[in-house]
């Protein structure tokens, strides 16, 4: 009976852990996405700066 209680608990614990692990994986993906988006924003910013500079030089 004791074994039974233990195995039942471990079944639940496993599912709870797996839900937590998935959440951790999600965090990692979101972090990477943020880095990527910042990179794109900066590139965009630089690009615009460059174009503005060019426009000024042309004037």
């Amino acid at each position, binding site marked *: 009976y004791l074994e039974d209680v233990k195995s039942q608990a471990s079944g639940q614990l496993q599912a709870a852990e797996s839900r937590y692990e998935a959440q951790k994986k999600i965090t990692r*993906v*979101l972090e990477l996405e943020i880095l990527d988006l910042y990179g794109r924003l900066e590139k965009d910013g630089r690009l615009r700066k460059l174009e503005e500079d060019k426009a000024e030089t042309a004037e």
Partner: protein
Amino acid sequence: MTDDSQRNFRSVYYEKVGFRGVEEKKSLEILLKDDPLDIEKLCTFSQRFPLPSMYRALVWKVLLGILPPHHDSHAKVMAYRKDQYSDVLHALTVVRFVNDATPQVEVYLRMYQLESGKLPRSPSFPLEPEDDVFLAIAKAMEEMVEDSVDCYWITRCFVKQLNSKFRDSLPQLPKAFEQYLNLEDSRLLSHLKTCSAVSKLPYDLWFKRCFAGCLPESSLQRYVFSYCIQAAWSLKEFLALMVWDKVVSGSCKILVFVAVEILLTFKMKVMALSSAEKITKFLENIPQDSSDAIVSKAIDLWHKHCGTPVHSA
């Protein structure tokens, strides 16, 4: 289709869905009343009999470890599984990997990739060969499992089982295929060898995808229609399930016998083809009209060579 194979097919299915089908359903119901569930007995049952469709998702979830053996825990554990499903799905929409227009099987693939740490940097990156395997299996699974949470979890664990439990045995299957084909029809094997076709057979389709998308369904429709109604099987699930019940419950060897049976069924055609390319191409697109009995005969063949699993219930 010869009279003989037709008779064989019929007898197998009268047996399966007739009175014995009712008995089987009852004995499965008794097994499902056990608390905790006896995984070993459920495995043996699935190895021997096709699962009634109303219990398939439940038995598969238990066998694949998605649900624990204790009935009391089912609601709680399934709630965790649902959370996990919607968490992952939601994250994928936030990073714009999926949207409302994304096909369901692709959603499953992205979820699986995220959970296994293999999500590519961009959704536009080309798919890996293993992704195609996943998609093929998910597509077949989608036909059989209605609930999308169940479908994702079953596909995920099914593929995981192929990659873990069967990782060492799947590469052995081509060798086993050769061995059993030799026992069943050595002339056919020598013909394949003469054409140097043995190494070029569609092993990936057979053994990595477990025939997902390979065995035609339409021919079955007219043939097994009445049986399906009696057994409450939907037509689409019929073929793959007969095999996949066995894979889920722990035998990937059944795949070898399906492959051998395909070769035996199309022996005349294969013998008439003289190049490896033609043979492979033919086997990848089995004709729709004559493969009705392949699976049931394959199961007979499997039992003949490997013995019938003892049902201890």
